[in-house]
C-alpha cells in the first residue's frame, strides 16, 4: 500500500529536530533509516502527520570512544559495524552480531539508534544494549536525559523514550582486554528476525568465571538479561553440569511470546539450547 500524507521536515541540526518534535509531539515521528517506520507507514499501521527526517543532520553520524564507552550517534548505520568499530573486544562483538541484521540493503539504511528506539524484542542491537547495560542519551526541549537499558525497554515496540525526545546517542561500555563472548541465533531463514538469540559475555579469572552477562532476545516481549543464570555462574569454574543449570535458569526466567513462527514451548527450548551454546562458545 501507499503511505498516508504527511508534512516533511528535514532539519540540519539536532537542535532544530528537537524544536520540531517539541512543536508537533504526538503527531510527529523521527525518520532515521526508515527500515521499520516506512513499512509501517506503507501498511498504514503508522500515519504520522509530520515526519522529521534526521538524515541530513551530519553531527549525528559518528562513532567515538570516551570515558570507557563507545558512543554511537543516532545516524550511524548498521553497515558501519560490519568491520569492528573499535579495537576493544566490543568491536568484534558488534561486527559478529550485526551481520545477522536483515540484508545488505537494510543495513545500508537502517541505524543502530533507530533499532533501539523501535524496541523490537527480536532486534540484535536491543539485545546488545540490554546485555551490556547501554545508556541511551535522549534530548528534548526540556534538556537531556541518560536512560539505562534496564529502564529503557518496556515491552514489544515500547520504550521509555517520550514523544518529544530524540535518541541522540547510544553508549556501550567497552569490555576491556580478555572479555570473551558467544552469540547464537535461530531464525527461519538467513536475514530473518530472530526467533530467539542469546548473547553471553564473560571474563575469566584463572580457571573461574569472574563476571558474566547473559542476554536473551526474541523470546520474550523485550530484550533482557538473565540475572539468575548469571548469578549461578559467577565465581564458579565452568563444567557441563554448571552450564546446563545456567541454561535451565535462563529458560525459567522468561515469559515466552508465541506467534505464527514459533510456539512458547519452542522458544523455551531455544533459550535452553542457545544459552548453553553461547556460553560454550564464549568459553572456547
Amino acid at each position: 500500500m501507499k503511505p498516508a500524507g504527511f508534512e516533511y521536515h528535514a532539519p540540519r541540526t539536532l537542535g532544530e529536530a528537537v524544536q520540531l518534535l517539541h512543536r508537533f509531539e504526538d503527531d510527529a515521528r523521527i525518520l532515521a533509516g526508515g527500515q521499520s517506520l516506512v513499512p509501517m507507514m506503507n501498511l498504514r499501521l503508522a500515519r504520522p502527520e509530520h515526519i522529521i527526517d534526521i538524515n541530513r543532520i551530519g553531527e549525528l553520524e559518528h562513532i567515538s570512544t570516551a570515558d570507557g564507552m563507545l558512543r554511537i550517534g543516532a545516524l550511524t548505520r548498521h553497515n558501519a559495524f560490519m568491520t569492528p568499530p573499535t579495537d576493544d573486544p566490543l568491536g568484534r562483538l558488534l561486527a559478529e552480531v550485526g551481520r545477522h541484521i536483515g540484508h545488505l540493503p537494510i543495513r545500508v539504511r537502517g541505524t543502530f539508534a533507530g533499532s533501539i528506539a523501535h524496541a523490537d524484542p527480536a532486534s540484535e542491537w536491543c539485545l546488545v544494549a540490554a546485555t551490556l547495560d547501554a545508556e541511551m542519551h535522549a534530548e528534548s526541549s526540556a534538556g537531556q536525559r541518560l536512560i539505562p537499558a534496564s529502564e529503557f525497554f518496556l515491552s514489544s515496540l515500547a520504550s521509555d523514550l517520550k514523544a518529544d525526545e530524540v535518541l541522540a546517542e547510544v553508549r556501550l561500555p567497552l569490555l576491556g582486554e580478555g572479555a570473551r563472548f558467544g552469540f547464537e541465533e535461530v531464525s527461519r531463514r538467513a536475514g530473518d528476525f530472530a526467533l530467539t538469540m542469546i548473547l553471553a559475555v564473560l571474563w575469566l579469572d584463572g580457571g573461574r568465571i569472574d563476571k558474566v552477562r547473559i542476554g536473551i532476545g526474541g523470546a520474550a516481549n523485550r530484550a533482557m538479561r538473565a540475572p539468575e543464570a548469571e548469578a549461578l555462574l559467577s565465581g564458579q569454574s565452568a563444567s557441563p553440569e554448571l552450564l546446563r543449570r545456567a541454561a535451565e535458569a535462563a529458560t525459567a526466567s522468561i515469559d515466552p511470546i508465541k506467534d505464527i513462527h514459533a510456539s512458547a514451548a519452542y522458544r523455551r527450548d531455544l533459550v535452553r539450547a542457545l544459552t548453553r551454546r553461547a556460553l560454550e562458545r564464549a568459553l572456547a
Partner: protein
Amino acid sequence: MTKLDINLNVNGETYPIKVEARRTLADALRDDCGLTGTHLGCEHGVCGACTVLVDDQPVRACLGFAVQFEGSQIRTVEGLADGDELHPLQQAFWDHHGLQCGFCTPGFLMLAVAVLEKNPDIDDGELRRALASNLCRCTGYQNIVKAVRAAAGAMKR
C-alpha cells in the same frame, strides 16, 4: 497535500519532478520519471524487487521517500545497458537462465551490481548470503547464483 519541487539524479540525468512528500522513491522513479524498470512487489521491504543504487549502495526504493534523495546519485536497471549492448550481468542472466517472468530481475541485477562492484572476488557463501536479500518466485535461485558468478568473471575482464 502540497507537492514539492525536487530534482532527482537518475542514471546521470536530472529529472525535475513535482511530488507529495509521501511519494516513495520507487513510485517517483516509476510514475514521475517514467522509469518503470524498477518493480514493486511487497512495498514493505521484504522482496527486494525495488532495489536501486543510491550513491552506489543498494537500497529498498519502497522504504524511502523521493524527497530524501535530492542530491544523491541514483542508479536503476535502465542505466545498466550501453545502448544495445547488455551489461555483463544482464548477459549472464540471459545466458544462464537467471530469469523467467523477469519480475524480480531488476532488483537482483541492481543488488548484484552493487555487490560485485564492491567485491569482485566475493566467495560463494558471501554471495549467497547477499543474494538472500531478494525473493524470486519462479526461476529459482540456483541459476541466479550461477549467473552472478559468471558475471563476476566477465566484469573483472
